[in-house]
């Protein structure tokens, strides 16, 4: 049998067979050959039907994704202005030197790398190594960064050589330049590359690994406003990754701008004033805040020492470490992130609370003999002495405030007992703590800056749970004058003063006044936000304001007086730390006040970590208010 099922033993019939059969065999062979041709093309057609018709759609998609690359377009970041429209930051180009590996000729690599070395002071071996690695990668058309942050001179020199060094490129990336540098570093903050910790969260919001994001300050709080909407270009790329054409542009929407309530001119001057007072008082840290008492807008906020936020563009580990090691903690905004005993500035709360509680009125007289003594509850032989700063004699309410008598306020808060008999009824620690909290102490203010501290307002329950001891009358006395366990930020204290000044509105302080579009049109204007209204009558607040006016007019804060504008204020000298011997302590200097006394517009607080309220803080407060009211008429 042969292959074709015939009986012949050979495909070619033997000679003796008939001619006819021979022809028949051949015809059959050709028939099967024709069949073979049709089968071959049939099989190929079936496979093509499968690929092109049944799976065609899937392959079409693969062909599209093959050649389509979506390249992100970073939006221009929003600009930040001061309240007068002065730009505080600009987006400027940063130059880097890069090399496109695919265009960098391999055979001239050594020579060209040496030319780049001469230009950029980067070792030629490093350049060659980097380029070789990238050339072998899947994406040889993406430039390799040879040196970041080159000077504009270097950039010009490199650009001139771009034609003679194929593949060399000046790469331009936008960075933030803060025109005001350290004067506003605590407010504006800075932007930095997305960190590994931030990436998982930010990636869901469309951030790329190399994006920059606000890391602190306004840049961080208003990141979503400033960033804008990233765009993307659908780019057609060839097999080696070279961009052929842009198929579709989805332009980026630039970030919105911010107008701050801050006044740059005032900020600069306040910084200078505080700097001077700091060196006069020997302080390591100092703060000053000026706030609009009706709106809560922050007009100036200075925390010293400060730092230049521009260095964060390309900060070295060494620079960062030295900022961390500085005893003044320059990276901290002490105005909102550090808490201190507020000292006598706390008497604003004690005084207004006592008036409201009815334990005091303008005619309430108390005599200070220089101290008040309290026997130990269990062992009367032990006697605690609570000193006044001077034996001030008999005072009414205004005099007590004006002279900042500690004894006067001890009694308003804790009462006065002699041999177990209550000679004067005080408001009590719980009531005082309640008023303190009504003023916003012991809680963050809600200002639009990060890392705000809450401070501490103690009460008997707090002491029991935190310290494990019972509250004593001494604790109440200490609390009455802002000592002991009381801690507050300078921002919280200026907020207290603003509430006293404006008739009882506890305001949410604000740094940003409005969000504006690129043409300067206001998108979201600032609306004053009142956190709460004090449970204290306007009349009682007016009484305390009169006390503060007298403090400047003839009392402890008289060094804060400003010619032509009546200032009302309260000093504070808050002791802290260990006994330096003989019952003396290191002290912080405070002043908080407002002006004009009869029609309050602004409140100001100053804090110096070393000094005396009357001697160091009040003059600084006066200087700031003087500048605020008189800068336009040359005084």
């Amino acid at each position, binding site marked *: *049998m*042969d*292959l074709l099922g015939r009986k012949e*033993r*050979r*495909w*070619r*019939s033997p*000679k003796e067979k008939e001619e006819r059969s021979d022809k028949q065999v*051949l*015809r059959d*062979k*050709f028939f099967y*050959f*024709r069949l*073979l*041709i*049709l089968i*071959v*093309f049939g*099989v*190929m*057609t079936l*496979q*093509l*039907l499968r*690929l*092109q*018709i049944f*799976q*065609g*759609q*899937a*392959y*079409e998609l*693969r*062909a*599209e994704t*093959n*050649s389509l690359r979506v390249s992100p377009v970073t939006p221009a970041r929003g600009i930040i202005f001061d309240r007068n429209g002065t730009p505080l930051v600009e987006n400027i180009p940063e130059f880097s030197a890069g090399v496109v590996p695919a265009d960098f000729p391999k055979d001239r690599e050594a020579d060209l790398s040496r030319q780049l070395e001469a230009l950029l002071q980067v070792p030629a071996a490093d350049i060659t190594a980097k380029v070789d690695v990238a050339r072998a990668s*899947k994406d040889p058309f993406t430039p390799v960064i040879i040196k970041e942050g080159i000077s504009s001179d270097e950039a010009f020199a490199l650009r001139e050589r771009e034609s003679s060094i194929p593949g060399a490129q000046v790469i331009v990336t936008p960075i933030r330049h803060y025109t005001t540098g350290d004067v506003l570093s605590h407010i504006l903050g800075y932007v930095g590359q997305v960190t590994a910790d931030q990436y998982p969260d930010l990636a869901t919001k469309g951030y790329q690994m190399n994006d920059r994001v606000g890391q602190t300050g306004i840049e961080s709080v208003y990141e979503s406003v400033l960033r804008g909407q990233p765009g993307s270009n659908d780019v*057609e*790329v*060839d*097999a*080696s990754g070279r961009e*052929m054409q842009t198929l579709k542009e989805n332009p980026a929407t630039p970030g919105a701008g911010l107008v701050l309530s801050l006044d740059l001119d005032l900020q600069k001057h306040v910084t200078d004033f505080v700097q001077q007072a700091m060196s006069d008082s020997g302080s390591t840290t100092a703060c000053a805040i000026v706030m609009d008492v009706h709106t809560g807008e922050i007009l100036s906020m200075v925390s010293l020492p400060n730092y230049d936020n521009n260095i964060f563009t390309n900060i070295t580990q060494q620079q960062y470490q030295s900022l961390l090691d500085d005893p003044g903690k320059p990276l901290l905004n002490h105005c909102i992130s550090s808490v201190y005993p507020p000292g006598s500035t706390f008497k604003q709360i004690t005084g207004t609370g006592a008036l409201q509680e009815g334990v005091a009125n303008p005619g309430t007289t108390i005599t200070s003999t220089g101290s008040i003594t309290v026997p130990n509850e269990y062992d009367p032989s032990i006697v605690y002495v609570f000193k006044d700063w001077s034996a001030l004699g008999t005072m009414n309410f205004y005099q007590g405030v004006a002279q900042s008598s500690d004894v006067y306020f001890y009694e308003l808060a804790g009462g006065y007992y002699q041999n177990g008999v209550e000679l004067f009824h005080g408001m009590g620690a719980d009531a005082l703590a309640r008023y303190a909290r009504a003023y916003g102490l012991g809680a963050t203010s809600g200002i639009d800056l990060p890392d705000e501290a809450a401070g501490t307002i103690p009460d008997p329950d707090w002491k029991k749970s935190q310290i494990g001891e019972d509250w004593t009358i001494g604790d109440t006395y200490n609390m009455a004058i802002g000592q002991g366990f009381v801690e507050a930020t300078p921002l919280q204290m200026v907020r207290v003063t603003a509430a006293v000044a404006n008739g009882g509105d506890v305001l949410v302080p604000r740094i940003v006044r409005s969000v504006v579009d690129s043409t300067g049109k206001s998108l979201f204007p600032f609306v004053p936000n009142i956190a709460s209204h004090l449970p204290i009558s306007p009349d009682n607040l007016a009484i305390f304001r009169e006390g503060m006016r007298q403090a400047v007019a003839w009392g402890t804060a008289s060094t804060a007086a400003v010619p032509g504008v009546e200032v009302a204020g309260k000093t504070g000298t808050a002791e802290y730390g260990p006994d330096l011997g003989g019952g003396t302590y290191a002290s912080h200097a405070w002043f908080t006040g407002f002006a004009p006394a009869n029609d309050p517009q602004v409140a100001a607080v100053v804090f110096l970590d070393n000094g005396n309220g009357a001697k160091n803080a009040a003059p600084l407060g006066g200087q700031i208010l003087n500048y605020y009211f008189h800068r336009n008429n040359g005084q």
Partner: protein
Amino acid sequence: MRAAKVNYAKEFDYILLLAALALVALGILLIYSGSLPSYGSASSVIEHPVARQIAFAMVGVAAMFGVSRVDYRLWGYAAKWLFVAALASLLFVLVIGQAVYGSRRWIELAGTPVQPSEMAKLLVVIVLAKYLADRQERMGSASVFVTSLVIALVPTALVFAEPDLGSAIILIAIWLAIVIMAGARATHVLGLIGSAAVAAPFALIAVMSNYQRERIATFLDPGKDPLGSGFNTLQAQISIGSGRLFGKGLTHGTQTQLDYLRTQTTDYIFSVLGEELGFVGVVILFALFIVLLMRCLQTAASSRDPFGRLLATGICTYILFQVFINVGVNIRLVPVTGIPLPFISQGGSSLLTLFIALGILESVRMHRGPPEW
């Protein structure tokens, strides 16, 4: 014996020529499109692959007419020398050839790269046809069978060493077709096929180069290394599949124009067709090939002498397998091996050989009578 006067104009197979010319025209369109990414539209006209292909086609057609006038039996008498020439050219390319994509297939001849394996395949067809036609009486003998196999195996070994697996397979296919058509014993053929099937896996491992093994591995799983050796296979598949029914339009294939296809004017030109002209274009191509091949077989079947019949059969097998292997590589039916698509792929060696082969076919058809001399 007086020779019968041949009426060339009347006997000439115009359908065969027209099918071939239609294929060349289609090929030129695809070469034009496929060469856009590397040549652009405005470069030196003389250097352009399209111009070169047109020139080769004109030379080819001229050669075809020339060869068709020569009585094909003349080639039979020169068979011995043609065989020597085929072996010499293959040896030559092995020694001094230029390695392209890992194999030595090309020699430089007067500034033009020449691929001798194309012409060698045609020469082997002539030699085998002549050898077996002369031994029609002794087709049952094992010695004739084995000798014919040796005649085929020597050039096969040489192209395999280049290495050119595809051409080696085509040479074996040519031998098989001619030997069956000539009337070899079924036992011989089946016995050989059987033992080859058993020995093949071992032989492959022993003889194949890493390059060939890698290609086989890639064929079996192109997704394994999509950017490495599997790249071409995968991209060819994507190109063809994405063409769908009507294709993306000539010069509008993204795969072709963005260089995702490699050697898109030669080995992977079928993928350009699939992508840009779609399934419809593929069917047109196949129809043209079927017409061409059927005309070849028609000539073979109508030939009255064994040499002419075997010659035409061999040429038909040569073209058929050349098409099958090239398209098969593109659509992942056979492992990757570089074989030009007849009449379509850019390249003078292949085109000239094919037109000479068609000339011989025409000669077989026109010289059906006794020799003219």
